[in-house]
């Protein structure tokens, strides 16, 4: 089995706040991440694809195409923004877990549409101390 991984990143702000909880409950649940004024991270995004190798080009997926898809679907949507402003985070808290699931889904559709590769995994590196993987481990 062969996989190709490309690493991207984007800086963004977020606030961990569950609207159905009180301020006190949010503070208990999310600690300093609940700061209502927000905070931010340099998110690292590792996108792993698998699929047949095109024997003409020697590639599972052109990294240039993946770069374009990442730019269109992730970078332009989330970079240098408050993640909570995005519609998809209206009803889900922008934790590393939910960010991984959202970005995985956003990339998977587009990669499937424009290539014969499949996004098998997305790893979100929120800080040097925590990361989250959506998808199957190899």
């Amino acid at each position, binding site marked *: *089995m*062969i*996989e*190709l*991984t*490309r*690493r*991207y990143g984007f800086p963004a702000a977020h606030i961990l706040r569950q609207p159905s909880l009180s301020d006190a409950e949010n503070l208990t649940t999310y600690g300093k991440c609940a700061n209502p004024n927000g905070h931010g991270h340099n998110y690292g995004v590792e996108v*792993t694809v698998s699929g047949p*190798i095109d*024997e*003409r*080009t*020697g*590639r*599972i997926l052109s*990294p*240039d195409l993946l770069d374009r898809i990442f730019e269109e679907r992730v970078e332009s949507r989330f970079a240098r923004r408050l993640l909570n402003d995005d519609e998809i985070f209206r009803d889900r808290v922008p934790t590393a877990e939910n960010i991984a699931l959202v970005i995985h889904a956003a990339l998977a559709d587009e990669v499937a549409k424009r290539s014969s590769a499949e996004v098998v995994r997305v790893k979100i590196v929120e800080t040097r101390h925590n990361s989250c993987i959506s998808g199957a481990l*190899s």
Partner: protein
Amino acid sequence: MVRITRAIDFSASLRYARAEFADEENAALFGSRARHHGHNYRLEVTLRGEPDPITGMVLNLKDLQQILDDEIMARFDHRDLNLDTPYFEKDPPSPENFARVIRRILIAALPDGLLDRIRLQQDADLWVDVVEPEP
């Protein structure tokens, strides 16, 4: 079962080309990768198995390093992948193809059943994993 990983770094130059294509066709297909360029590659080799009851090792790391020196460093470090090796006369040295070449070399050089996976890192932002099936 345990998995143990050893990493090596080497540098090589390359250009993406298909032998049957003219230079202009290769440039159209591969873009800037058709030009002569180079990478600092990092290869992580992961072995799997039970540690030997006496030595406590899956494979003596000294022996693994010797295999990596003889089979990988000697072939590829400070070489041109197209001109100095026989592996990319037909196919371009994409990381996918390069990783498959390295896997074949290591499968032949290592004791049977030890190779678990390799990771070939072309730079900090792009890598290829080749994972062996479960035994």
